[in-house]
């Protein structure tokens, strides 16, 4: 078990290191980093200064180790626009994104699992087909279209404008973008819960439970659901990626002052230092999340612990 944990942690660290290296190599060879990090209209002397300051006259491996060293010390560079540390800008915007992402995850988990379970228990009936149709709909619906439709409906039917800066403080102003962001995941949770539950219901231990005279409800809640939920943990871990990707678009549509909006704005204005930091932060988040999912299996699935 210790070996399992260590190998997972080592793999996560290696993946993160490779990502950092790729980002470094990419920035280093995509052009002159001094010119990229300096303001666009900087005179030649300033660029030279940047070059010396960045150590670009040093050998490649010295630059690389220096880059790693700065990352470890928490020095992620400065935004060319505000001159503030990228880390600080990111931290300013993180709470808004966590609020939106957390709400979206909660909505999609609760609704998705409920829909999937209801569909599985009514297999083949119209309600099952309805849920399956919904999951296909949710997958194909581009979140920018759904978001715009929500804004349109909100302003025409309810006289509230959900796409503006001020809307994020109201309850509806939070739920509308969270629903937009969580829709795709909700569909895949519903689909997955349904197939996982159907598979579990037909396992021999369910028949054994029935034979022991355990009532239907208890069989379902104590025996079927926990077993069906195990693979769902992986799916939630994986869907973090689509949640992050979705928040980039959703925050843009609803003018939500979060990290996704910051990323799009930084790309549009060529704020390389900020973009680079955001990419590393997203990679680190996802690698950590995947590691947690792997380790969570030890807790929830005793069969892995036994190996």
């Amino acid at each position: 078990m210790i070996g399992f944990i260590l190998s997972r942690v080592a793999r996560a660290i290696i993946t993160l290191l490779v990502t950092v290296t790729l980002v470094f190599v990419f920035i280093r060879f995509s052009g002159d980093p001094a010119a990229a990090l300096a303001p666009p209209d900087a005179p030649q002397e300033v660029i030279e200064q940047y070059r010396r300051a960045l150590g670009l006259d040093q050998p490649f491996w010295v630059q690389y180790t220096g880059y790693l060293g700065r990352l470890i010390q928490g020095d992620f560079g400065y935004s060319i626009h505000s001159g503030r540390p990228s880390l600080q800008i990111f931290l300013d915007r993180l709470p808004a994104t966590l609020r939106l992402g957390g709400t979206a995850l909660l909505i999609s988990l609760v609704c998705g699992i409920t829909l999937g379970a209801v569909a599985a228990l009514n297999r083949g009936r119209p309600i099952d087909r309805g849920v399956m149709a919904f999951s296909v709909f949710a997958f194909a619906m581009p979140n920018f279209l759904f978001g715009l439709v929500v804004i349109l409906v909100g302003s025409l039917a309810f006289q509230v404008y959900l796409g503006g800066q001020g809307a994020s403080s109201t309850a509806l102003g939070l739920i509308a973008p969270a629903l937009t962001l969580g829709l795709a995941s909700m569909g895949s949770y519903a689909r997955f819960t349904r197939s996982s539950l159907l598979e579990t219901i037909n396992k021999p231990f369910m028949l054994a439970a029935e034979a022991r005279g355990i009532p239907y409800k208890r069989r379902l809640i104590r025996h079927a659901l926990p077993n069906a939920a195990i693979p769902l943990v992986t799916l939630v871990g994986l869907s973090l990626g689509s949640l992050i990707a979705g928040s980039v678009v959703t925050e843009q549509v609803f003018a939500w002052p979060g990290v996704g909006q910051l990323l799009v704005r930084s790309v549009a204005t060529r704020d390389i230092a900020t973009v680079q930091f955001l990419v590393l932060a997203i990679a680190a988040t996802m690698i950590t999340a995947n590691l947690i999912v792997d380790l969570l299996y030890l807790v929830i699935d005793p069969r892995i612990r036994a190996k």
Partner: protein
Amino acid sequence: MSDATTYQRPAIPWAVRLALGFIAVFVLFALFGQWLSPHEFRATSLLDRLRPPVGFGGTWDYPLGTDARGRDLLVRLAVGAQITLIVAVVGTLIGAVLGSLLGVLAAARRGFVETVVVGAVDVQASLPIIVVALFVLAMFDSSFTLFLLLIGLTGWEVYARLMRGAVLSAKEQGYVTAVRALGASPYRIYLRHILPNVVSVALVQFTVNMPLTVLLETALSFLGLGVQSPLTSLGQIMSEGRDRLLTAWWLTLFPGVIIFLLALSISLVGDWVRDRFDPTLRSEN
């Protein structure tokens, strides 16, 4: 001539038929839609700005209305559909070929090559493709070729993983040992024997991956970081109409609904293809 023992092909569900129908109409519209309108897709007409569609106060001069520069929406949708179609097909192809090649290579060579490919798959799995695309677009001037290549990266890691697994298990099959014993060269074994047996895995994934390509292209273009004006795509038209959502809804809703129906149709067909040709991946019990 058919008798009672002939295998009956299961009927194609009506939803899949509808989806195939929509895809056919979409492709025809992308290819020939420009001829439906006398206007040119970049031609502006300041006197005809923001005309509503027919039925909402518009005239047949501009059946679907015009945008803020008086450009005909119908012809812009046709051109946009064309670009979206090209990006979707070419982008999906790039990812399929690249990912499958790497997967086959990893399984065939094992050792160092395999370690590198599996590592690259891990790295890609830790970054959503839209973030990778945004990172690259921040560095380089956006060009159509670069954009196409980036879209092509969508889901390559899935092909690589699937094909590696398929080839590894195919290599263990008796027929491979048999042809090897007959003295077949490695190239012959891979091209003539293993590849035909695993290619269905990639074909199925192709239809599953294509809606994701469509959605990524339109999302990036919607953010203003994909297809750039004067060229246009469905996402780019939406992005231009976004600020006028409440006054000129047709600029966002028409392209949006087309994108949705396209992604929906392709994924319905994709699910059907997967269930039909690859029972091991079946989503339903």
